[in-house]
């Protein structure tokens, strides 16, 4: 036992003897703080609740993932360590910090307790607070990776019907689901809404011998499901579309090996954006991203051409 341990025990016993009883002195303060905290919690719970977004959709690549605020600093730190170094920021540094905290009392063993008597650790603590704090603020301020897209409520309702009816038991969308029925994103694009609705009412009426059961859905559920199907299917584009691309877009954008590099590579754009978002981006990029350098094409191309181009681009990478 170090000599100061003995001295500390004596001094603490003296201070403790001179102190006040835990009840009611400390208990009063604790109860007051607990009451204030509960009041604040109740106010937040009552005013803001907990929020609930739409149902989880593992196939939606356009969602902006955001961790809970207290993980934001870690999320933000990842951005400073590109590529293979990411594991340093994600695991090695936080792991070392936790280990350091855990072993702190074995490292710092002297009798000094006042923060001014431990300038190194006090400084380290303040530095850590500043780093974590500023990373959190930077994370809160950083722009969303994907622009927020307004989603068609009918399509969202259709996605719920698809999930509720367990369609994925037999069908695949983007490689996820069963193998009994056709892969929907491959086949559904060419069909009209009327055909789809008829098919959902009675599959055998349009596909004789179909193994699909009758769904017995309400009219608005059928409309929603058809809208969802239209949103996932690759709609056919004309031969014009690739030509339009090389004429108007390829100076800045790449598809495969062809094209310029001043704009983003669009080889896989269909996996990240749906057709509606691409149409908006082509017609008026600043409506999605105010800082966009790309010119608006709504006056240079006709609506039909923009639709064609968007169908072509949304088919890439799916």
């Amino acid at each position, binding site marked *: 036992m170090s000599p100061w341990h003995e001295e500390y025990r004596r001094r603490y016993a003296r201070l403790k003897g001179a102190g006040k009883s835990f009840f009611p002195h400390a208990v009063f303060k604790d109860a007051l703080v607990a009451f204030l905290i509960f009041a604040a919690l109740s106010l937040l719970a009552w005013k803001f609740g*907990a*929020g609930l977004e739409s149902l*989880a959709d593992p196939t939606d690549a356009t969602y902006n*993932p955001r961790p809970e605020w207290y993980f934001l600093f870690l999320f933000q730190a*990842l951005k400073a360590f590109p590529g293979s170094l990411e594991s340093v920021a*994600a695991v090695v540094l936080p792991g070392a910090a936790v280990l350091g*905290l855990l072993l702190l009392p074995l490292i710092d063993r002297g009798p000094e307790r006042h*923060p001014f008597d431990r300038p190194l650790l006090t400084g380290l603590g303040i530095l850590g607070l500043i780093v974590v704090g500023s990373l959190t603020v930077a994370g809160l301020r950083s722009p969303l990776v994907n622009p927020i897209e307004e989603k068609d409520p009918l399509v969202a309702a259709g996605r719920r019907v698809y999930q509720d009816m367990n369609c994925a038991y037999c069908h695949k969308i983007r490689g996820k689901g069963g193998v009994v029925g056709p892969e929907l994103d491959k086949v559904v694009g060419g069909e009209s809404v009327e055909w789809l609705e008829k098919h959902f009412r009675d599959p055998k009426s349009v596909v004789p011998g179909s193994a699909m059961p009758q769904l017995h859905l309400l009219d608005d559920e059928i409309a929603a499901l058809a809208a969802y199907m239209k949103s996932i299917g690759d709609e056919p584009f004309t031969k014009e579309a690739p030509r339009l691309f090389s004429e108007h877009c390829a100076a800045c954008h790449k598809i495969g090996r062809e094209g310029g590099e001043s704009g983003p590579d669009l080889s896989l754009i269909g996996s990240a954006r749906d057709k509606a978002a691409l149409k908006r981006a082509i017609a008026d990029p600043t409506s999605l991203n105010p800082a966009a350098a790309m010119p608006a094409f709504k006056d240079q191309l006709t609506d039909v051409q923009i639709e064609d181009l968007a169908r072509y681009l949304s088919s890439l990478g799916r």
Partner: protein
Amino acid sequence: MKNALILARDWIVERTGFDRVWEVLFERHVPEAKGPAAWLYTLGSASLFVFLVQVVTGSLLAMNYVPSPDHAYDSVRFIGEKVLCGSFIRGLHHWGASFMVVLVVAHMLRIYFMGSYKYPREGTWMVGVVLLLLVVGLGFTGYLLPWDQKAYWATAVGTNIAEQTPFIGPLVAKVLKGSSELGAATLPRFYALHVLVLPAAMLLGLGVHLFLVVWHGISEPPERARRPGEAP
């Protein structure tokens, strides 16, 4: 009548030693802290209080929640729309999680800057660090349970980060997710961690932590070190 009450009290005291427990827990003396610093000593009990709020609200939520991808989202909606005070209870649990993190970290900073982790309280501190990790784990596992877009994608990011760990990452991620992808196998796993494993570990850790706090006594506010020869 009064005699009967005293008799009953004595009967219980004789069989439980309740009077000694009360003495040790509540009549123990605490070194006096002066001024606003005295209020920093409430952070630990405040964390305990919010933990209890989480236990109560969490138990109420578990009565209506279904941990399966097919029903989780609808059961959370049901809690918000149909259950008596459901949206308020869910709000308390949601905000309680953030409060918990803030209070536990603030409590740790108090101990860190005051040097209260030093002899003889090293073990109390180490158990405290484990408790902090458990709080973070509870926050992470609880975030997935509503099974909405935010929940799903935030957890996807989190498990991807775990996957980056050198050597053991892929294994850790697979154990967390229950399969190669985040999906039907993940949700029941996170639910079991969130309502069984982590709270049980938390209660155990809290028991040890609180025992040590009482055993060693609450640390006194720090004073500047005296140079040799200086008068005390």
